[in-house]
């Protein structure tokens, strides 16, 4: 006998560590059991080391030879363990023999699952019956029925439900069930009372009345309903089981004659779950067959069952039936069936050979080895350098993708079904008689179905036929007296805790249509209620992160609809820490979005909208500037390889929008002005260069020739772009050509015109210097020379443009030529005249400031940015500096004229402050140089000023602005006195 036990241990050695539980029981009891059987002359009747011939009879014999009481359970447990291990050993052997090369794996898997499923459920059910027979004593038990409500091949747990007619004497039954549960845990597989945990948490057994109440209050609880739909009688009163079916389960079938709302609730709940699982991302370190695919398949099958009235719970059977009922879906059902077979066998084998867990961890070598054993057992072989587990994983991901594609199609079909059968359709067709009647009917439906996840068709219905239903509902609301309106809103608020996503969708729908359907008041009231209720979540940040992870676009749409104060409040709500690692990225991205919505001016939000419209995935990257940079570089790379110029231009526009948004975020996050300017100039120059290429390529076909810019044409940035300043509202450009070829000049003009059209789309106006003088975008160098030779009184303005210009498109040879022919002779060689003109201009500007310029204009006020720019130009002319960058210019002057070093450094710092203030104001308030300090708290916050009282930070910004401009004015005076 010990030899047989040793042999069993050896054979079961490849199974998971969990097998030790059975071996321990067997080792402790089997000798005793054998002796008892021999003493009773029944040893030949019971198969201890082979598969049973007749489980029922053999277990009866085992129970019969055992002493009374607990020993009987031990004997039965030992016998169960023997049969369980033997069953699995044989099944694995058969599987290995079947999956030889050339055999149809799918057929072998199917047979394996069918056989093991039948054997295992028979073993478990027979054992449970015999244990119950042993446990039920003389106590009076109410009639009860035990139902299996899950898949009986799951080795990890067995889902069961226990039904009683009422709650009388339930404690005695609970006591028996508690003991049964302990026995199952100890000797077989643990029970999971999911239904009772939810429906009657204080009791294992659930009464029909409790099921009734639950069904009426939780119509979309698809997990509970799915388990009920799976119910099969295992033990006890068949009449009670039938009542459960008739009174509770039946209502979920479309053809049952019951109120269709139950069916609709289940379909919406299960469909929402299937869609959400089918669209979730894989995690890097694990696969979860149950969540990745099995639940998706089973949810869809359950939905179809209720639609077509298939009462038989077996999933394989239903897949076959569906093939007959829906021949148009035959291929799709095949994919589901093939997928289910693969995922179920993987799951079964993993639990048998590795560990009883739904999650298959992939990130350690040990786990890879474990998965390799599973892969080998189901027929995957090593191929060269590729291990069986790797081939299995490739197949796994491929199978999940196939199932999800089919699931998406089938889900759409179910959606269509809802569109034509939903109870919400009645709202459109009936004509309410009393004020508030339509609203009440709608609220009733929503309340009943509030927990379900799928509402897409209802939202479509609300806005269908020119928003007929939405308009009618809002009109109904507006027709109510104020107290009734408030009551209705408060009724709705209850939805927030139960389904925040649904409430937010409603808010967004109302917000986006509020003007059209006169819903401003309703939107404001609902939004206020929403925020109040959302604040009472234990951790609002976590709830919001959940929502964002699932529906990022929805959150963005919501934040687009709310006012500044709401955006601030929401930003505060989501600022709390979220501890769940998988939610942290979503929480961070949401914080980034809120920040942008709150701090961002309309100017910056314009770019946000443009980006999100085309690249909604960027919502996940708002807190990750590196990832945004990678994304925009990807777009730029794509633009380079797209063949059509039109496609290139579109992608370049996307690149520009995304980069501007990124640099804007960087600035709001506190980047230095040097960093902001450098990054801004980098992308803006890239944009211009690539745009020039795309436009000249586009026009080359039309003109039959190319603009060969590298020899004869150049584009210079002037103004802010030339100084490498960020966030300009216009694009000052100078386009020069060194050719008298009129055709080429025309072609050059056409290219620049095409570029202008694109630049305008980015929300910037291109300005072409000298256009007013020459009437053309493109200026020949020869004409420019003539222009300056004439020595116009105001040509210092044009000279300034050229002096501060920066080559963006073109060659250094062209630049040298421009320098020699224009800058040197007309600016540097006539510096005294230029400087005098500029000083006069500065003086007359400052004299006029009181009348003409606003004192709070960061650009034009005394000591403002324009004064700094003009002073720098004077210095450039004085010292013959061509470099466009302010920092370089000031360094250069400091080197050749150290007497002004201190003032220049201080001037540079002041300029940085004013420029940063201007940038932040543009990004956070509006695209205006006139600073409104009453709205500058937000600017102060970004610039690091402190103070809680409203207006305090703005006041500090104003003081700093005034201090700095006064200082700048004095410094310029001092510098110019020394230099000029």
């Amino acid at each position, binding site marked *: 006998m010990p030899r047989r036990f040793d042999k069993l241990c050896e054979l079961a050695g490849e199974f*998971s*560590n*969990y*097998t*030790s*539980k059975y071996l*321990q*029981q067997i080792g402790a009891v089997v000798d005793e059991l054998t002796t008892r059987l021999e003493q009773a002359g029944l040893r030949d009747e019971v198969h201890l080391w082979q598969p049973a011939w007749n489980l029922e009879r053999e277990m009866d014999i085992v129970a019969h030879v055992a002493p009374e009481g607990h020993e009987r359970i031990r004997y039965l447990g030992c016998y169960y363990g023997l049969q369980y291990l033997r069953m699995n050993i044989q099944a694995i052997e058969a599987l290995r023999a079947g999956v030889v090369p050339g055999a149809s794996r799918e057929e072998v898997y199917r047979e394996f699952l069918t056989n093991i499923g039948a054997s295992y459920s028979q073993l478990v059910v027979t054992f449970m019956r015999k244990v119950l027979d042993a446990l039920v004593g003389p106590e009076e038990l109410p009639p009860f029925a035990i139902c299996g409500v899950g898949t009986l091949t799951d080795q990890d747990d067995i889902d069961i439900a226990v039904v009683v007619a009422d709650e009388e004497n339930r*404690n005695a039954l*609970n*006591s028996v069930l*508690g*003991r049964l*549960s*302990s026995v199952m*845990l*100890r000797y077989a597989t*643990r029970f*999971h*009372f*999911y239904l*009772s*945990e*939810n429906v009657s*948490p*204080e*009791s*294992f057994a659930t009464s029909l009345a409790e099921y009734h109440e639950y069904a009426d209050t939780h119509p979309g609880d698809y*997990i509970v309903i799915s388990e009920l739909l799976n119910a099969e009688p295992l033990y006890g009163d068949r009449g009670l089981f039938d009542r459960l079916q008739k009174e509770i389960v039946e209502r979920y079938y479309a053809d049952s004659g019951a109120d269709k709302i139950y069916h609709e609730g289940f379909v919406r709940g299960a469909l929402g779950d299937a869609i959400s699982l089918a669209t979730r991302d894989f995690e890097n370190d694990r696969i979860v067959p149950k969540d990745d695919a099995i639940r998706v398949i089973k949810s869809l099958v359950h939905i179809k069952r209720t639609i077509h009235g298939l009462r038989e719970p077996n999933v394989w059977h239903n897949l076959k039936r569906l093939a007959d009922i829906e021949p148009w879906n035959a291929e799709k059902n095949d994919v589901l069936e093939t997928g289910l077979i693969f995922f179920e066998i993987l799951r079964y084998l993993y639990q048998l050979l*590795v*560990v*009883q*867990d739904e999650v298959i*961890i992939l990130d*350690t070598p*040990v*786990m890879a*080895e*474990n998965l390799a054993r599973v892969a080998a057992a189901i027929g995957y072989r090593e191929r060269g350098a590729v291990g069986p587990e790797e081939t299995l994983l490739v197949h796994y991901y491929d199978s999940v993708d196939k199932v999800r594609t089919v699931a998406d199609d089938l889900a759409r079909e179910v959606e269509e079904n809802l569109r034509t059968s939903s109870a919400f359709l009645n709202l459109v067709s009936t004509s309410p008689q009393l004020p508030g009647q339509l609203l009440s009917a709608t609220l009733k439906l929503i309340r009943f179905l509030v927990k379900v996840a799928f509402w897409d068709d209802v939202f479509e219905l609300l806005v269908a036929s020119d928003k007929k239903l939405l308009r009618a509902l809002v009109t109904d609301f507006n027709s109510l007296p104020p107290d009734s309106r408030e009551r209705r809103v408060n009724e709705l608020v209850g939805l927030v805790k139960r389904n925040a996503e649904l409430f937010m969708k409603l808010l967004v729908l109302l917000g986006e249509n509020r003007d059209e359907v006169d819903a401003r008041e309703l939107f404001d009231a609902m939004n206020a209620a929403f925020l109040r209720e959302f604040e009472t979540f*234990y*951790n609002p940040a*976590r709830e919001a992160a*959940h929502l964002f992870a699932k529906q990022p676009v929805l959150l963005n749409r919501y934040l687009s609809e709310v006012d500044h104060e709401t955006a601030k409040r929401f930003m505060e709500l989501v600022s709390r820490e979220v*501890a*769940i*690692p*998988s*939610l942290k990225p979503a929480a961070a991205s949401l914080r980034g979005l809120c920040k942008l919505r709150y701090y961002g001016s309309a100017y910056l939000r314009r770019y946000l909208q443009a980006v999100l419209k085309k690249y909604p995935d960027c919502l996940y990257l708002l807190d990750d500037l590196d990832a945004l940079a990678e994304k925009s570089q990807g777009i730029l790379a794509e633009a380079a390889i797209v063949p059509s110029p039109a496609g290139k231009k579109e992608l370049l526009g996307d690149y520009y929008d995304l980069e501007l948004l990124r640099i804007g975020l960087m600035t709001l996050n506190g980047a230095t002005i040097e960093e902001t300017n450098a990054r801004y100039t980098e992308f803006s120059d890239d944009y211009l260069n690539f745009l020039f290429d795309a436009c000249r390529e586009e026009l080359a076909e039309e003109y039959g020739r190319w603009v060969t810019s590298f020899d004869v044409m150049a584009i210079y940035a002037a103004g802010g772009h030339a100084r490498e300043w960020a966030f300009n509202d216009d694009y000052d450009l100078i386009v020069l050509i060194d050719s008298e070829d009129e055709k080429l000049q025309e072609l050059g003009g056409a290219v620049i015109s095409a570029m202008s059209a694109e630049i305008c789309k980015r929300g910037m106006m291109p300005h072409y210097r000298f256009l007013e003088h020459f009437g053309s975008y493109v200026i020949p160098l020869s004409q420019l020379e003539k222009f300056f030779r004439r020595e116009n009184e105001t040509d210092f303005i044009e000279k300034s443009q050229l002096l501060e210009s920066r080559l963006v498109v073109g060659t250094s040879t062209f630049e040298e030529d421009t320098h020699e022919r224009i800058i040197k002779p007309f600016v540097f060689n006539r510096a005294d005249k230029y400087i005098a003109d500029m000083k006069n201009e500065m003086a007359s500007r400052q004299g006029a400031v009181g009348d003409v310029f606003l004192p709070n204009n960061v650009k034009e006020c005394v000591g403002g940015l324009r004064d700094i720019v003009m002073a720098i130009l004077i210095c450039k002319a004085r010292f013959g500096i061509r470099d466009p960058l302010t920092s370089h210019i000031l360094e250069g002057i400091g080197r050749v004229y150290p007497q002004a070093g201190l003032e220049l450094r201080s001037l540079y710092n002041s300029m940085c402050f004013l420029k940063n203030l201007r940038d932040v104001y543009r990004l956070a308030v509006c695209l205006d140089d006139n600073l409104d300090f009453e709205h500058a708290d937000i600017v102060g916050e970004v610039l690091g000023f402190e103070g809680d009282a409203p207006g305090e930070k703005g006041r500090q910004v104003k003081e700093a602005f005034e201090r700095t401009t006064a200082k700048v004015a004095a410094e310029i005076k001092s510098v110019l006195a020394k230099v000029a």
Partner: protein
Amino acid sequence: MAFYYQIRLSGGAEIDLHLASKILAEALAVYEDKNVVQHISYGPEARGAAVRTDLVVSDQEIYRPKAQEVDLLVALSQEAVDRYAGDVNDQGYLLVDGTSVRRSPEGRFRVYKVPFLDGARELGDVRLANIVVLGSVTALSPAHNRRAVEDALLARVPPGTEEIHRAAFELGFNKMKEML
């Protein structure tokens, strides 16, 4: 007098406390022949908020599956403390994670701050926090025998990972013993 002991493990969904609870249940049922009932909270809570799993242990019959007057509560998050500390009886114990729980609750029960998450991180994998919890609960629970829990633990882990799981158990057990 009948022995009746109620344990609740709670925390965020990122740590598999259900596994710890299964092991504690099996240690009692399989290896010690005690009556035990496990009550698991799935549903929305298991998708991120406070996950809860109850264990009711007795040498007699158990009528109610759900723990009520909890003798030993483990809380790995502040939310779990806030939600469930009120269920701990006056003679009970509350074990909270040393880093993620900042506010200790009011009550007559004894509170210990145990480095569950940090301990697991020290071992190189925060997912092992459930096994550190298992060790600490075993050290404190009068219902549990160390050997039985270790046997149940090893039966529940994948082959090849026994050592790291044993180390996590040991860590939790010793930390708790040091504090007592």
